[in-house]
């Protein structure tokens, strides 16, 4: 399976096994760190991209010069449904209030039926004075009550928790009876925070906006699903780019170490001179060093990638999410999307592996193209 040159390359590694082992360990952890830093936000983003497809096509809000305004439910639903292409219009009652330990998102649940998947834990909708809470909201009261402060101060009885798997969207959510929610947020009766609109065809989202805006007698602003997804993607990728930029000095330092190490280890350059004098061509020497570096880098890349997959998608995900986002109670369910994983692999290859391989190969290349006599003279002076 292995040819003589490959076996010789491994024999060459055995000449200085500890240096190679040290390089392999360093590279493994560096790839694991860099890979995790790039893959984790990418995985969060991929997960969001997938689940965001289930969100309403358009969110419509009323605006005035000071910002958002509550919408009158009846008129706005009428106006929105009059637009051709609109499939469903749902007024949403939501806002932020103070919880016992910080702000929470409150939502009034209006629909008649709950899907089966949620129905199991939620046997009934919250009645007046009751609340269903997300996984991240701890109830300090042993009786299971939750004090909230908005337009009014009120304590609610916690009757259920939302499924843990949905934490990506419901972690800090408090579901209340719509009347309770309106009171708490301070919305007048018959008013909603905004409208969730679904359109017939995905590609019509953008085209329908002008019709929607025209259908309302007051100024409105629409945000499409695609725009929301773009906002998150932009943030994540800018964050990843900044991460990559901050890693550049570390990668450069590592490249320098590798280059110096390579120079020292094989680069008792006289060895190369002797090999050339013995009939090794430049191509043979490059191949030898390519194999040498591959035998160190390949297991390191595989192990490093394995470690970063373990941290992002595997059992290590809890710890990592806790570290990065403080998701102590939220084991994130990140999904692997092939495109995202391939992109990260390419980025790691571009940012880490290529420079390291280049820094290992360049001294070899330099030596291989230098005058043989000069290389051997170096040995004479040694």
């Amino acid at each position, binding site marked *: 399976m292995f040819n003589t040159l490959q*076996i*010789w390359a*491994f*024999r060459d590694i*055995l000449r200085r096994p500890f240096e190679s082992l040290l390089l392999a360990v360093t590279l493994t952890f560096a790839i694991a760190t860099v890979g995790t830093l790039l893959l984790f936000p990418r995985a969060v983003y991929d997960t969001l991209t*997938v*689940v*965001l*497809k*289930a*969100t*309403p096509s358009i969110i419509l809000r009323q605006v005035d010069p000071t*910002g*958002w*305004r*509550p919408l009158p439910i009846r008129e706005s639903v009428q106006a929105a449904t009059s637009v051709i292409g609109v499939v469903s219009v*749902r007024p949403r009652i*939501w*806002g*932020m*209030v103070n919880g016992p*330990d*910080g*702000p*929470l*998102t409150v*939502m009034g*649940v209006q629909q008649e039926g*709950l*899907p089966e*998947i*949620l129905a199991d834990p939620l046997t009934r909708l919250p009645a007046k004075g009751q609340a269903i809470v997300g996984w*991240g909201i701890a109830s300090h009261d042993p009786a299971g009550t939750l004090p909230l402060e*908005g337009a009014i101060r009120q304590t609610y009885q916690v009757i259920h928790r939302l499924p843990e798997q*949905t934490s*990506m*969207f419901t*972690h*800090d*959510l408090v*579901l209340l009876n719509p009347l309770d929610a309106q009171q708490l947020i301070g919305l007048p009766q018959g008013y909603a925070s905004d409208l969730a609109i679904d359109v017939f065809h995905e590609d019509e989202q953008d085209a329908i906006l002008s019709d929607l805006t025209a259908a309302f007698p007051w100024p409105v602003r629409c*945000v499409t699903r695609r725009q*929301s997804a773009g*906002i998150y993607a932009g*943030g994540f990728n800018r964050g990843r780019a900044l991460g990559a930029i901050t890693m550049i000095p570390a990668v450069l330092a590592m490249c320098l170490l590798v280059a110096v190490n390579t120079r020292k280890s094989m680069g008792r350059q006289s060895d190369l001179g002797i090999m050339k004098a013995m009939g090794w061509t430049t191509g043979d020497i490059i191949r030898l060093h390519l194999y040498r570096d591959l*035998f160190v880098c*390949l*297991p390191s890349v*595989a192990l490093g*990638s*394995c470690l970063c*997959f373990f941290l992002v*998608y*595997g059992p290590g995900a809890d710890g990592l999410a806790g570290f990065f986002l*403080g*998701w*102590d109670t*939220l084991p994130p*369910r990140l*999904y692997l999307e092939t495109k995202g994983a391939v992109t990260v692999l390419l980025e790691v290859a571009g940012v880490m592996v290529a420079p390291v391989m280049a820094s290992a190969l360049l001294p070899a290349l330099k030596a291989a193209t230098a005058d043989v006599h000069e290389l051997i003279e170096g040995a004479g002076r040694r």
Partner: protein
Amino acid sequence: MMQVTYDRLDKAGYGLWAITLVTVLACVVITLLSLDTCRDARQITQRAIQTLALTTPTIIPSGRALRNADTVKPAIDLRHSPHLPLIHFSPEDLVISSLKPETGDIRSND
């Protein structure tokens, strides 16, 4: 009888097999982790989103500007949360803060 060897090329050959094995094992682990893509969690989340008409993920805590990134412009709306303190927003808050409301460190200006 043990064969006398005058070189270490056989040993190098075994070493090559060892690193091949390590690489293959790592690839197998990656493949196994890739296969487990938490499809059930994805479905249940999507159902919850559809039912409750949710739009914003909770990766950033409540009360933060980016928690509802699509509402940030033209102004951060305080009308939906008129009784919240004004949030002092800073990047380090984002990095170090917790999603968990009970540990979330929200500084207010007032």
